[in-house]
């Protein structure tokens, strides 16, 4: 690991000032320190935000939930309100990582974790994300775990989070404090940017921006499901995952919020898929039509071709379970 300066932030303004001056923010550190050991990331300076007062989960004025950026994945998964009203989020968190990692990993850090693409993780390999312009070996290499949607000719990395997939289906917003002290809120969908020809840029965050909370809108009655398909049944990243928040009224799908993990450089949501379902009677042919829309632009790179039919089957299975339960 390269050497670095270490500072402990006294306040969020202090953290932002350090970050604006070039420091990398460290919270749980479970991904950042791993990357620093491999020298995939080599910050000159770290600012530790763990002592900041961002560990609260509270109800918002309109009945939603405000989750402080330093709430651990464990505490969030076990929180009474999350288990009762945002089940898909508890389920996604519990499907991710291990007990030890969930105790350390934070809400903000989970959103900003980096891809687990083997080429990104290996400094001996070219990687457009790690070293812009150096090329991408994954395109024709070991790409079994990599993306089929939202990719570019420069990068096919996936976003590895389960938590963010559930939050995407829950219409989450991200609260960001900027270095000038102001606060802005963006939809989680808008936090991430697709790789295009700048795969090293993953979010809209600017130096000095600090995620302070994730805000979930008030929960409405619906069936919540999170289904994760992976190579072993615990402690593995998703090959495909589907988060579904679905309700059925009078035999027809009244609402359907669907987000996907393991398929794209960001937690993936496609409103056209949902629009095709709403107002319709649940049926396997309808679910096939939804999968057609989801996968219309899907592109495999050889070893990950299997994700296209796997995503179809997983979506159909989830929709069948969700609509059967909801009726």
């Amino acid at each position, binding site marked *: *690991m390269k*050497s*670095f*300066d*270490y500072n402990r932030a006294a306040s969020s303004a202090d953290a932002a000032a350090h970050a604006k001056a070039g420091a990398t923010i*460290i919270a*749980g*550190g*479970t991904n950042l*320190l*791993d990357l620093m*050991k491999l020298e995939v990331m080599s910050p000159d300076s*770290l600012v*530790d935000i*763990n002592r900041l007062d961002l560990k609260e989960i509270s109800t918002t004025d309109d009945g939603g939930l405000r989750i402080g950026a330093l709430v651990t994945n*464990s505490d969030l*998964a*076990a929180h009474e309100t999350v*288990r*009762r009203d945002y*089940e898909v989020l*508890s*389920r996604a968190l*519990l*499907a991710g*990582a*291990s*007990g*030890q*990692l969930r*105790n*350390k990993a934070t809400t903000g850090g989970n959103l900003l974790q980096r891809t687990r693409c083997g080429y990104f993780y290996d400094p001996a390999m070219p990687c457009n994300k790690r070293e812009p312009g150096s090329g991408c070996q994954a395109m024709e290499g070991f790409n079994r775990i990599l993306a089929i949607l939202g990719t570019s000719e420069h990068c096919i990395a996936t976003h590895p989070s389960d938590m963010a997939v559930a939050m995407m289906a829950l219409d989450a917003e991200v609260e960001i404090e900027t270095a000038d002290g102001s606060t802005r809120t963006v939809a989680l969908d808008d936090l991430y940017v697709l790789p295009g020809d700048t795969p090293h840029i993953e979010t809209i965050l600017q130096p000095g921006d600090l995620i302070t909370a994730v805000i979930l809108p008030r929960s409405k009655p619906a069936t919540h499901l999170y289904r994760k398909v992976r190579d072993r049944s*615990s*402690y593995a990243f998703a090959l495909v995952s589907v988060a579904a928040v679905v309700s059925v009224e009078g035999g027809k799908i009244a609402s359907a919020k669907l987000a996907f993990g393991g398929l794209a450089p960001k937690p993936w949501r496609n409103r056209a898929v949902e629009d095709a379902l709403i107002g319709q009677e649940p049926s396997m042919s309808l679910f096939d039509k939804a999968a057609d829309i989801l996968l219309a632009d899907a592109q495999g790179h050889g070893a990950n071709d299997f994700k296209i039919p796997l995503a179809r089957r997983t979506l159909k299975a989830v929709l069948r379970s969700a609509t059967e339960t909801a009726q």
Partner: protein
Amino acid sequence: MTLKTTLTVNDQEHDLDADPRTSLLDALRHHLGLTGSKKGCDHGQCGACTIIINGRRINSCLTLACMHDGDKITTIEGIGTPEALSAMQDAFVRNDGFQCGYCTSGQICSATAMLDEVKDGWPSNVTEALEGDLELTDAEISERMSGNLCRCSAYPGIVKAIREASKEDQR
């Protein structure tokens, strides 16, 4: 550059003056001489370095010592001694919960804190209903312990030991 940190390990305070790069695991092993916590992968994948901080189990290889000033740290040395084994340690001995023993201190720290998570009502990925009572089935134990690998594959003994210790815990 070095940093001064006070680590409270097994109820004893230690003053550490170390490079900020020092992982908590390296601080425990190399600076404080507490070699019970083991370094397996050094990347948070194997669980051999599991310790308990403020009552919760974590991978000590994936955190910096300087981040834990004032935290209450428990290592395997603080869980029991050869003369006075904890119930979990005793159950591991009686149920062949290890073969080579390298992963064992991590397994025992992890299992000890895991039982507290169960007592707090935390669900797991295999828990049927997110609300309501929890039953610590073998499937629950395996899921909750998936962050601890055993290359000797002593898993049947590990699960049996934890099951037994969890019952003693309830008495």
